[in-house]
């Protein structure tokens, strides 16, 4: 290990290290963050949910978006897998269907960052994803 | 020095910064009771654990009570030493201490001299509450030839621990265990004889209760006195006469030589002799040995062992046998005066009187507890018969006198018997620190220079400082002298010699504070060190009043050499008056 020689070095080091810890930091304050849940049941995984999740994690990390990506069970929209639920603080949760990597990036850039509405929203009458568990 | 104004029991007091509440109160005549606190200011000895909590006082604005012995005054302090809160606390704590203390005051050997007993009387303790379910902390009793330990009576004042470790650096005792069973004891709570204890007895001298007391041989002495087949003679050490009077209410420093002799004679001793005579004899042997070594040294003999160390003090002998086994050939080989007296009595006086050795009982009255151990050392016993049969302390003599219905104050002054009762001023000052070496110088000077010494008072060798150094001009030859009293100071001096820091020709060492006058067999000083100072002055007074003040002028000593010993360091003298030392390993 190299010695840390100044406060500046320490700060740089912290910046490099905090990526790995971000997920834990964010989980501390979930209410203030955008929460994205990827349905990760067998049907979801089969349709490529894992790739979508990876894309989302990388995207929000890269753009430094205050969001947290979690995985959930089957939401019951197996026909539309992969599905993701996005909860922006202060808004009702929204579920997107047929999400692939390109769609995922679009959701982040347009819906989460700019607040634009997008296609692919599944109209629902459920309250939260958890009730389906 | 900055001064501080405080108020104690509504009295305004101004004291120097650093003064404790206890000291400040004392200044205005308020005696706050203490139990564990010990301050021998003339000797620089202090033990202040703050453990007994008897000296607590109320300080306004403070949450709890303050121990006055260890709380320094701060500006504006308002102190109350005897309101209800303080009195109740003090009394309750004292009751607690008594609840863990045997209730056998009537038969306790410290009865009448016990600080705890005195305090209970002062505080008016008439009952101890809730004592019926109270467990007592009890320990195995320990009897050594010099002192007894009955730690059931220990109140954890820790004075003995301070003395043994910090003052004497002997390290035989330590606080052991924890909580209710905490006590001061040797390692593994073994007996003192198996510990590095030197039997200096200073722990006894400061014990406020009957936990540490001298081993008492007075019954054996009474039995010998009553035995018509025995000739019983007694020798009294120089320091005894300067302190015995205190036991009878006389002022400290009162010399009671004549009354003491009268009392001893009245007790039934066949002859009353003086250890001072043997002290003169010691000077002849030790002084000659010193001069022998110095002249060899001056002649360029590199193997000669210098400095020479005095060997009169038995606790000191025990100390170097334990801690300086590599230096066993440095001390003088001369026996102590007590043992020289015993040897002369049993080998010469028996001839003179025509009594058999086993029919002569030699009793010594000593200010010392280590003497009890010394007279039992194997090298001083011939065919099962010791040179000195019993050694009793000054306090024990006092209690013998009291028990034999004598009114000490009214006794006439009497003289010692001869031939072993005649002494010079040099023998007398053996009782005080620096005295032995001063006595040796008086004789060695005249022998070495062949000139008469006009000024016999070597004030540069006197005083109560722990370590003293002086150079005496032996007619052109400077003789460097070191003096230490208390074993911790002896250790400092010896370590200084070993490291090459000091260079001496002769060193005198005494184990007890102030020398023998501060011995553990003396009347208890109860923490007042001015008593020791007064005794020291008395010793020098006796010396100055003597007609003869140099040992070699003692006519009976001259006669002893002429008739019996030949000359100092003769073969006979060597056999009867010298000894050798043994390595001990009890650390």
């Amino acid at each position, binding site marked *: *290990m*190299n*010695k*840390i*020689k*100044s*406060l500046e070095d*320490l700060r740089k080091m*912290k910046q*490099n*290290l905090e*990526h*790995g*810890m971000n*997920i*834990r*930091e964010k*989980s*501390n304050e*979930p209410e203030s963050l955008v929460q994205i849940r990827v349905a*990760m*049941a067998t049907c979801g*995984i089969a349709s490529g949910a894992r790739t979508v*999740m990876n894309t989302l*994690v990388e995207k929000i*990390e890269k753009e430094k978006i205050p969001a947290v*990506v*979690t*995985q959930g*069970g089957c939401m019951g929209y197996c026909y539309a897998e992969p599905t993701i639920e996005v909860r922006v603080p202060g808004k009702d949760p929204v579920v997107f269907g047929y999400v692939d990597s390109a769609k995922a990036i679009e959701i982040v850039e347009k819906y989460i960052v700019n607040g634009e509405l997008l296609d692919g929203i599944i109209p629902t009458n459920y309250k939260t994803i*958890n009730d389906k568990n | 020095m900055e001064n501080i104004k405080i108020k104690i029991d509504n009295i305004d007091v101004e004291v120097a910064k650093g003064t404790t509440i206890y000291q400040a109160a004392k200044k205005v005549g308020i005696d706050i009771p203490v139990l564990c606190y010990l301050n021998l200011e003339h000797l620089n000895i202090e033990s*202040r*654990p*703050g*453990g*007994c*909590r008897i000296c607590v006082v109320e300080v306004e604005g403070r949450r*709890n*009570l303050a*121990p006055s012995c*260890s709380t*320094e005054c701060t500006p504006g302090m308002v102190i109350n030493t005897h309101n209800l809160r303080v009195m109740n*606390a003090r009394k*309750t704590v004292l009751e*607690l*201490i008594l*609840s863990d203390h045997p209730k056998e005051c009537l038969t306790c050997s410290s009865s009448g001299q016990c600080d705890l007993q005195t305090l209970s009387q002062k505080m008016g303790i008439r009952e101890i*509450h*809730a004592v019926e*379910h*109270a467990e007592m902390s009890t320990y195995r009793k320990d009897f050594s030839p010099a002192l007894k330990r009955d730690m059931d009576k220990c*109140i*954890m004042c820790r004075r003995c621990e301070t003395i043994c470790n910090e003052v004497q650096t002997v390290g035989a005792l330590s*606080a052991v*265990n*924890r*909580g*209710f*069973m*905490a006590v001061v004891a040797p390692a593994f709570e073994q007996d003192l004889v198996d510990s590095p204890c030197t039997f200096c007895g200073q722990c006894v001298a400061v014990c406020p209760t009957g936990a540490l007391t001298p081993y008492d041989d007075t019954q054996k002495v009474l039995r010998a006195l009553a035995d018509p087949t025995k000739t019983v003679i007694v020798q009294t050490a120089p320091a005894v006469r300067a302190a015995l009077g205190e036991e009878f209410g006389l002022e400290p420093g009162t010399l009671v030589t004549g009354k003491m002799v009268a009392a001893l004679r009245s007790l039934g001793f066949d002859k009353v002799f003086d250890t001072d005579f043997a002290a003169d004899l010691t000077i002849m042997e030790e002084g000659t040995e010193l001069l022998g070594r110095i002249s060899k040294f001056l002649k360029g003999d590199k193997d000669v062992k210098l400095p020479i160390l005095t060997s009169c003090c038995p606790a000191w002998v025990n100390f170097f046998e334990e801690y300086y086994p590599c230096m066993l050939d440095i001390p003088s080989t001369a026996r102590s005066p007590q043992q020289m007296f015993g040897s002369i009595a049993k080998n010469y006086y028996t001839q003179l009187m025509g009594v058999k050795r086993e029919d002569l009982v030699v009793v010594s009255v000593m200010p010392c507890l280590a003497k009890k151990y010394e007279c039992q050392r194997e090298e001083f016993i011939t065919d099962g018969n010791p040179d000195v049969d019993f050694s009793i302390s000054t306090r024990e003599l006092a209690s013998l006198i009291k028990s034999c219905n004598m009114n000490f104050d009214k006794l006439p002054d009497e003289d010692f018997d001869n031939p072993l009762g005649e002494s010079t001023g040099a023998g007398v000052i053996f009782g005080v620190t620096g005295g032995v070496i001063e006595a040796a110088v008086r004789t060695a000077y005249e022998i070495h220079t062949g000139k008469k010494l006009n000024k016999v008072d070597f004030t540069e060798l006197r005083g109560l400082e722990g370590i003293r150094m002086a150079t005496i001009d032996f007619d052109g030859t400077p003789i460097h002298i070191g003096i230490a009293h208390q074993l911790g100071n002896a250790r400092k001096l010896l370590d200084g010699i070993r490291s090459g820091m000091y260079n001496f020709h002769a060193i005198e060492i005494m184990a007890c504070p102030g020398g023998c006058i501060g011995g553990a067999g003396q009347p208890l000083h109860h923490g007042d060190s001015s008593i020791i100072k007064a005794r020291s002055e008395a010793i020098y007074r006796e010396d100055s009043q003597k007609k003869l003040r140099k040992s070699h002028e003692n006519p009976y000593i001259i006669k002893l050499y002429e008739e019996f010993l030949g000359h100092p360091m003769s073969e006979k003298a060597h056999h009867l008056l010298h000894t050798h030392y043994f390595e001990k390993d009890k650390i």
Partner: protein
Amino acid sequence: MAQYKMHLLVCGGTGCRASESEQIVENLKSEIKNLGLENDAQVVTTGCFGFCEKGPIVKIIPDNTFYTQVKKEDCAEIIREHVLKGRKVSRLLYEDPETQKHIEDSKHMGFYQKQMRIALRNCGFIDPENVDEYIARDGYAALGKILSEMTPEEAIDILKKSGLRGRGGGGFPTGLKWEIASKNKADQKYVVCNADEGDPGAFMDRSILEGDPHSIIEAMAICGYCIGASKGIVYIRAEYPLAIKRLKVAARQAREYGLLGEQILGSDFSFDIELRYGAGAFVCGEETALIHSMEGLRGEPTVKPPFPAEKGYLGKPTNVNNVETFANVPAIYLKGTEWYSSIGTEKSKGTKVFALAGKINNVGLIEVPMGITLREVIYEIGGGIKDGKKFKAVQTGGPSGGCLTEKHLDTPIDFDNLIAAGSMMGSGGMIVMDEDDCMVSVAKFYLEFTVEESCGKCAPCRIGNKRLHEMLEKITSGKGVPEDIEYLKNLSRVIKDTSLCGLGQTSPNPVLSTIENFYDEYLAHVTERICPAGSCKALKLYTIIADKCTGCTACVRACPVDAITGEKRQPHVIDPDKCIRCGACYEKCKFTAIHVQ
């Protein structure tokens, strides 16, 4: 650091390790490997989550799923279901004791809702053996900031303004303590961390050292800079092997990064620490005793003044703070005094960690803002009294504290209020008692502890506490008389008033506070000779209900001391003088004819 989508945090504190949490870590890791999820999920051994009652704990990030009482056999299921498929293993979720519903994530658990973690900020969050994780959470940033931007005086000033008070028991203002030590001139000074946690039932210091050792090292270095000391010593209980290990690992890492040692972070400041072990003496929590123990002596306290800040370790100015106090320090410098002093009450700022134990549902370690009420702690965080029993008292402050009752439930907890209520903050033990606990026996339990732990130096503590204990023994064995209560009260007050150190000055508190709050219970013991809680064996009275007794003689045969007599098929009687209250007859009787009072 690698980017994992999921972190599995496993508690590696002593409590959970006792339930094989190390094996859980191994099993989780191997299952992750089996399923090829190494790049997705990371298993991290952390410090204590505090919820020891339901340990071992596995927490899944980012969804905060909180699995309790996980067994090593459960690991495969957690990975396969939760990590792989996103399905929570509901049987391992925490069940709310009142609603019996599973709670999915820790944010919704009553245990955590009222907590506020400052001293424990990293416990259960980072891997204590990985300095990088500490740095990623702004570790050593406070030290860096102080070294490069502040003078010692400025730094001390911040601490003074924050209002932080010592968490070891006394509550002395920490900034002021540092200031005194900084003003005493000496060639060498020392910073000492008191980690000799001896209060039975309190384990916050251990948890902090196990869960976040770097925060202590950082704070000690800050203190060293402020007071002008280059040496730090952690005095730690030898009975804490895990904490010792983690502290050693942390110190090594800090040295490798140059965060300990010469010229830290390029400044002129040099500082390093070493460890000293305690050896089982509660009194060594007292700072002068602690210092003597560090010097290789018996851990006996000495009269203060002189305070350690003037004359401490090896006679040099020494600043002693306990672990929890130090743990707060970096956070204060990072977030500022305004933030810190906005938490808590007027005179007690910040938070306090408590070890919640006893007859309570959620045993564990909690950190709450000062000013929270006992009711919130016991009923909301603690989940109420175990087995639906009635709350009787809560003991705070360990052997130095007192018992608080129903009437204190709504008192805001802070240093001063607890003292006013007859107890104290102490190091933060909080033991809840229910209706089955006899308060005389509780006082006796604490006194037994004090008697054993008294160093024996001063008379009131050495003998007085022994006498208090004997008197309580007398009362609980049915031999007490009413005057004994007055005796206890007077003796207790005198011990408090006259003892040398904090141990004796507070040891009678359990007696005084139980007499104050449960006088009737004492009275019942000494007048009617009954124990209302039914706990004192000697005060139970066994009698035979004549109407129910069939004279079957089963009890006669069961009685070991022949205390029961009677003709066959006639009602029997028990001789109370012979009866030793063993209860054998009660168990044997088929007709419930034995009555126990």
